[in-house]
């Protein structure tokens, strides 16, 4: 039982990171209909930036907002400089550009910081607390920071005029222009926000998985799965999907191991986590193509 709770707790912690990446993917998807395959590598690059600032003696909690801001600017520039000219390009050209970006951020990180594994110390104090047998301080911290970030984003989109303008631009660019909203800038802002969210995810996950250029590859896959399960058109759904995928992968391994221990039959274990998680994603999408929380737009004419 204790082990089960532990697995769920660590699943939630991983899920927090998947949720961040899923949200970053959705943020770009809802306004452009594109999936940014480079989202994970951009987050990895941001994690390296955090590491660099830590090396220079900065504290984590100062480095994180600085890197989030720098990542925001990188995201905005990528949209303005690289993707803007491709505005009317066929979808495949855009996909090629995303793959190119992925390769660029990947090799850039390797070239600047090398391919050897680096460690980032957890910014959360390693203290004992009620329930610390079930979940580590870093995992709690990851969940807490993610929830704060999500709450802040929710408030931004729900209550500020700029957030409303971004939603309006994502929903109907033509109508948004007719309301005087500068849609192109809203897209760039969306890219910036996505990059900043990815930066937070990267910086939070780095102490847990170690820093190296490939660190985000499987995490992005999980984030993508989370976004699809929750509904790629729904930010709230993507976040929920991220948590669901995180818990699910641990439960699969837990019950697989349990089965092996009690009956001696090995069906799934830690090695098959990703596979089974993706099978579940495919199942969900087959039964419910718009995802669990994806909305079907109500429209009357």
């Amino acid at each position, binding site marked *: 039982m204790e082990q089960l709770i532990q697995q769920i707790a660590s699943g939630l912690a991983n899920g927090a990171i998947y949720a961040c990446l899923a949200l970053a993917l959705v943020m770009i998807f809802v306004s452009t209909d594109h999936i940014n395959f480079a989202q994970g590598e951009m987050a990895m690059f941001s994690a390296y930036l955090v590491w660099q600032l830590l090396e220079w003696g900065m504290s984590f909690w100062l480095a994180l907002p600085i890197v989030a801001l720098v990542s925001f600017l990188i995201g905005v520039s990528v949209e303005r400089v690289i993707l803007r000219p491709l505005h009317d390009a066929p979808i495949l050209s855009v996909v090629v550009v995303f793959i190119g970006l992925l390769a660029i951020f990947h090799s850039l990180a390797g070239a600047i910081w090398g391919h050897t594994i680096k460690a980032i110390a957890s910014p959360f104090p390693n203290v004992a607390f009620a329930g610390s047998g079930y979940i580590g301080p870093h995992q709690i911290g990851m969940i807490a920071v993610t929830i704060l970030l999500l709450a802040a984003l929710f408030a931004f989109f729900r209550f500020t*005029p700029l957030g*409303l*303008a971004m*939603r*309006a631009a994502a*929903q*109907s660019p*033509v*109508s*948004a*222009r*007719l*309301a*005087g*909203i*500068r*849609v192109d800038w809203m897209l760039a802002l969306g890219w910036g926000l996505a990059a900043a969210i990815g930066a937070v995810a990267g910086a939070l996950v780095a102490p847990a998985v170690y820093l190296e250029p490939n660190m985000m590859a499987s995490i992005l896959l999980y984030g993508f799965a989370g976004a699809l399960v929750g509904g790629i058109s729904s930010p709230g759904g993507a976040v929920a999907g991220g948590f669901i995928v995180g818990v699910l992968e641990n439960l699969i391994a837990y019950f697989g191991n349990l089965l092996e221990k009690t009956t001696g039959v090995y069906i799934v274990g830690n090695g098959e986590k990703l596979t089974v998680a993706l099978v579940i994603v495919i199942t969900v999408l087959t039964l419910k193509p718009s995802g669990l929380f994806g*909305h079907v*737009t*109500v*429209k*009357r*004419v």
Partner: protein
Amino acid sequence: MGVLLEAQGLEAYYGQTQALHGVSFSLEQGGITTLLGANGAGKTTTLRAICNMVRTQGTIKLDGEPITGLATEEVVRRGVGHVPEGRGTFVNLSVDENLRAAAYTRSDKAAIQRDREMVYEYFPILKQRLTQQAGTLSGGEQQMLAISRALMLAPRLMLFDEPSFGLAPLIVQEIFRIMRRINAEAKVSMLLVEQNAALALELADHAYVLETGRVVMSGKASEVKSDESIRKSYLGY
């Protein structure tokens, strides 16, 4: 009365297809002008050309300042409220959010609030629908929201694209009555595209008749109304 908007030799293209062949017209300050013509004559395209929503050549001046080539949102920011075909509301946002998004470019909170009150006075039903998703409104209510959305920009000029489209006759009458009030009370000039020529000529003081992307006739609404060929082609008696 001065000229608010002047268009000279407008040509518009959808891809390779030319939809306007040198259309010229001018709109008077405070007036209501209507564009008449059959389907495909270029009425909607003319409205789109003003807001640069279609590839356009020629010159357009708003209050003497050229606006040709400006992005749609910049034309809008100069006071052009476009109520497009298909209404141009945000169907997934609530009525309240639609109105807030519409006032996004303005910063004077008191003036925005005054315009809110004005909108509620014209369309009291919207005040009861504030939290409702715009896509779930009835057709008439959506058209009212679309007009309100344009009004919240505090426009100098409003462009209407078929405001009667798909609506019950009683609702159409009410909407046209309110359009007249907006013109008189809020001092907004209007350019109206309308299939229902009789209705349009009743509201408008000037009219242009388009045929296959060219102006074939223009003048005071009363003169156009009494023209023999117009009566036969567009008014049907």
